């Protein structure tokens, strides 16, 4: 025990850490462990059967492709938004800046029904596309729209502070040595914000993988086409197939962990670059 904790004159360590560990175990660790134990009742072959089921694979594919598309959209436009918010001033900028966090604050169900209404073939936005025979709501495109909304703040909020920290002197130096504005962006600014951009992309992607509430209203939920993995879990639960639902949940949890590790690695990398 002497090695476990460094000496301190402050009181309350045992109480604070004890309560933290107890609460963490009761609320998070024990409930999460039930996933492993329940999946274990399936056995390895049972688990493999669920994991390689055509419908499960299709739902994972839909989830991944749509999440990737939405995160890419947000990486491109999020970078533009962050740039505009950091570098330019225009009337109403503070309001716009505050509004970027709306997807964090607006409950997903509200986003879901609103986007479904807007992008339906007779909706405000959907009817412009319907004229060209493009359906958005009730197709995989609808999922991309919902996930773009959900992931919008991530890239903006990770790039913004890093972009604000890029030193004007470096840009001036590059420019005085004859670099064009585009060169300065490409060779000086972009390399310093690149890790933050990637982190924002990964955060938006990770959030999208598990998203449920905003998608189910707009997706149409057709098996093999627009059915996402979380919805398949709910469908299996409704058929009392607890083991099957749990197996899919475990797959998703493992994917989320891998992403979490990747994001931590990215953040560590970008911090190191900042220090240098």
């Amino acid at each position, binding site marked *: 025990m002497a090695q476990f904790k460094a000496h301190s004159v402050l009181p309350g360590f045992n109480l604070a850490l004890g309560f933290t560990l107890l609460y963490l175990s009761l609320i998070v660790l024990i*409930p999460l462990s039930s996933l492993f134990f329940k999946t274990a009742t399936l056995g390895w072959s049972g688990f493999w059967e669920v994991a390689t089921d055509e419908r499960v694979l299709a739902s994972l594919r839909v989830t991944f492709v749509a999440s990737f598309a939405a995160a890419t959209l947000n990486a491109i436009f999020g970078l533009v938004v962050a740039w505009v918010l950091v570098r330019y001033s225009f009337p109403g900028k503070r309001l716009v800046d505050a509004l970027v966090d709306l997807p964090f604050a607006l409950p997903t169900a509200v986003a879901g029904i609103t986007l479904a209404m807007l992008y339906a073939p007779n909706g405000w936005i959907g009817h412009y596309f319907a004229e060209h025979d493009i359906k958005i709501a009730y197709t995989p495109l609808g999922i991309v729209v919902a996930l773009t909304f959900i992931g919008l703040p991530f890239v903006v909020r990770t790039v913004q502070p890093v972009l604000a920290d890029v030193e004007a002197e470096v840009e001036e130096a590059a420019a005085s040595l004859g670099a064009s504005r585009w060169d300065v962006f490409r060779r000086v600014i972009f390399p310093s914000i690149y890790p933050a951009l990637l982190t924002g992309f990964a955060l938006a992607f990770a959030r999208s993988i598990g998203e449920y509430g905003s998608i189910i209203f707009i997706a149409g939920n057709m098996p093999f086409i627009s059915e996402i993995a979380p919805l398949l879990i709910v469908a299996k639960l409704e058929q009392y197939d607890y083991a099957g639902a749990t197996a899919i949940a475990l797959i998703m949890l493992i994917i989320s962990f891998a992403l979490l590790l990747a994001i931590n690695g990215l953040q560590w990398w970008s911090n190191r670059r900042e220090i240098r």
Partner: protein
Amino acid sequence: MSLPQQLINNRKITTHESKVVTLVLITVALSYLVLFLGIPLFAVFYEALGKGWSLYWAALQDPDAWSAIELTLIAAAIAVPANLVFGVAAAWAIAKFEFRGKSVLITLIDLPFAVSPVVSGLIYVLLFGAQGWFGPWLQEHDLKLIFAVPGIVLVTIFVTFPFIARELIPLMQAQGKDEEEAAVSLGASGWQTFWRVTVPNIKWGLLYGVILCNARAMGEFGAVSVVSGHIRGMTNTIPLHVEILYNEYNFVAAFSVASLLALLALVTLLAKSIVEFKAKSNGDRLPHGETE
């Protein structure tokens, strides 16, 4: 290059984009935000009020809507204080002391953010549902957690678990422990030190975490949906009530109730901006990497 030549060149240094590029970028950014944020936000209120105030009020005065509002308030009123106490305890242990396994602990606290809302609901069904670990025991004692209010409260605590802790941990780590050590060595008790030294230093960060935690607690859909059982007037929260109305094609009522949640989102954003502004103008100890 001779020096005078360099000075001439200096005048042409371009450290700003041309007016055209600036204008194009601002237009692109604002169009994107209007399309994905502005129009949806406006549409919620338009759909809610478009058929007149009387229908709007009727939807809100429905007894089922009231019981949904009540349940949402109960869930948040339990989840937020519970996670507040946890967040402060965790941040105190992590920021003020050195011990082994600290970084593992920080990662574990973030776990609920990595779990899909549906999976969050599922794990509580596996524990407390009729076929779950504690299912038979609960039935023997005539207790019902799943498809009942306690289950909703539990999953709400789970999904909002990290919010306050993850605001406080970096803040208190950056502040270090010098002030607390000074107070203790001058004879202050632990609680005195906490209330008179620590709390005033972290109050804006604390409030910030509470605001975000509350917004998620009141708006959570997926996790609550799995454990609720959707019993009208009994186990429906506001988001679940919105879903039921929408699926019944009762769009005016659905958007009327949804507008309450949209208002909550706007209040959250406003409160968040105020706290950020206050913390900044106080020069209040936002993390500035002192200990790193």
